[in-house]
């Protein structure tokens, strides 16, 4: 079930955060809403995919290890023109998982950004998202 966190000072950007680790999404929501983003959190891959396909978001933060269908599968569905019309949202992978290089290269090719969560703080995530046009 998706949860909405509306920012007190919206800058007009909507973020879908697909993340099942509650402690992490809690931190991201706090930093992002403070910076003026509207954040929707979704813990379930399949539900997240449906939400993403509504194309109402500017940015999608996608964890790779999420329940029902993995982030890699979500990405594949979102990038398949037969299933999803081209999204305006930028898809940023946020993961702590290590991939085999060939798999990772393939993911990076399909996504607009790839972040290792342990290597950034929530504030750095905001700084990074601020650079996305």
């Amino acid at each position: 079930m998706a949860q909405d966190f509306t920012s007190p000072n919206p800058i007009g950007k909507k973020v879908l955060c697909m993340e099942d680790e509650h402690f992490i999404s809690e931190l991201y929501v706090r930093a992002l809403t403070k910076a003026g983003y509207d954040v929707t959190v979704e813990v379930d891959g399949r539900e997240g995919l449906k939400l993403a396909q509504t194309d109402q978001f500017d940015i999608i933060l996608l964890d790779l290890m999420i329940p029902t269908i993995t982030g890699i599968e979500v990405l594949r569905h979102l990038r398949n023109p037969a299933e999803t019309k081209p999204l305006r949202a930028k898809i940023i992978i946020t993961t702590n998982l290590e991939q085999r290089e060939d798999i990772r290269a393939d993911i990076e090719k399909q996504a607009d950004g790839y972040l290792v969560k342990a290597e950034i703080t929530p504030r750095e995530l905001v700084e990074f998202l601020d650079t996305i046009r």
Partner: protein
Amino acid sequence: MQRYLPEHDNLPLVSFCLIALVSLLLVAWGSARYLSQPVRTIWEAVLHISPETANTSAPDLKKVHLGRELVAQLIGHIYQIASVADDVAKVSNSDHKLELRGDFVANSLPLPVVVLDKDMNILFANEALHAYVKRSEAETTGQNVYLVLDMLFSNQNTFDKWLEDVRGKKVTAVRTWERVRLNLPEQKEMRLFDLVAYYNKDNPEGNEIILTIYDRTRQYSQDEQAMGFLALAVHELRTPLTLLRGYIDVFEEEFDGKLSPELTGFMRKMKATAQQLTTFIGNVLNVARFENDQLILKLREEEWAPLLKSAIDDVKLRADVRGVSFTLKIDDNLPTVGVDAVSIYEVVNNLLDNSIKYSKGEKKEVIIKSYLTSNGEVETTVQDFGVGIPESAMGNLFEKFYRDYRNRTQVGGTGMGLYLSKAIISAHGGHIWVRSKEGQGSTFGFTLTPYSRIDDEKKGTGEDITRSAHGWIKNHSMYRR
């Protein structure tokens, strides 16, 4: 009467004889090595195909200078003979008089073999190959080889690339690859093997290429399992680290200016410690990647000063909390360098981390310089005035897990940073060095090649320059888009 000869009258003669003898020995040793290399390579091929010495690696043809063409052909024959030897023996020992037909021999082979035509279509695949890829004869013969053998190579020197090189240049050629990965469609299992390709341009029957597969799944998958475990362990370490860094971030923001100097200090130390743990995890992963031939660097043209400064900035907090100050002396107008930004960041990070850890004396200063050498290379040095390194430890510093026994109890560390730094710098075509005096501090330095000098490699390809650090890749992915 006593005759006094000049003291060193016969010295020139003795010296000449000695020099001549030493030179003769050196020449003899060198030429013996040079001359025997082809034979040794052939012997390695024999060992490689022998079941008793299955762990021997495939011969490296690059080492052969003398008669490489001939050696390549001979090795080709060895692999071909190996493909049929067992079965010929079986047939000739049996009581049945069988007609020894090529496909019969190939079909009863234990090794998967596939023969390709000029268009990479499969002319023939033996039964061992059908079993290996779990496809029938009808599903393989006539098919393009890539539809049947979906091969993944550990670096850029793939079968395709080799074939492109040899076609047009050579009449016959042989090459081996280790640790080739085979993805089987709709099957979870994965195969790892050594591949031998034999190329013959003028084969009258159109058999341009023969591929032989030496399965090494069991042997290599142990390494893969170790990597799998490591990936899992890293994930488990990273999640609490993400949270830890996140909470520190929140506290820092909320308590900004409200905490006592002591608590502010603790907060900064906590943050620095978490950063250090991130570096450590990165090192663990990169060492594992390096050793599994998966650390691949992509060299791009970069301005060196901003890159260096940003790496220094990221370590500043760690220096601050330990009372260490940085002094930067970076020359203006340095040429652009060809580097993998992510990997070179890790080198600087490791060298600075060490300089902070070992700054134990009174002078807690680290001087970072970057300048152009007389050879036209960009050299960067990190100098500390700390504990220094004893003479006895200097030779082993860049070895894996090496830690000077006297420092072990005083300074934490794992002995991975310098090992990794050396691997990364070597892969960049530079060199890394150290000068140190015990009790007075150490200077570590490394060189990078200006981009203008390595650009030649890039010409004609239009792609990034890719070099493997005995082959593989990066970890720090921040802002990589």
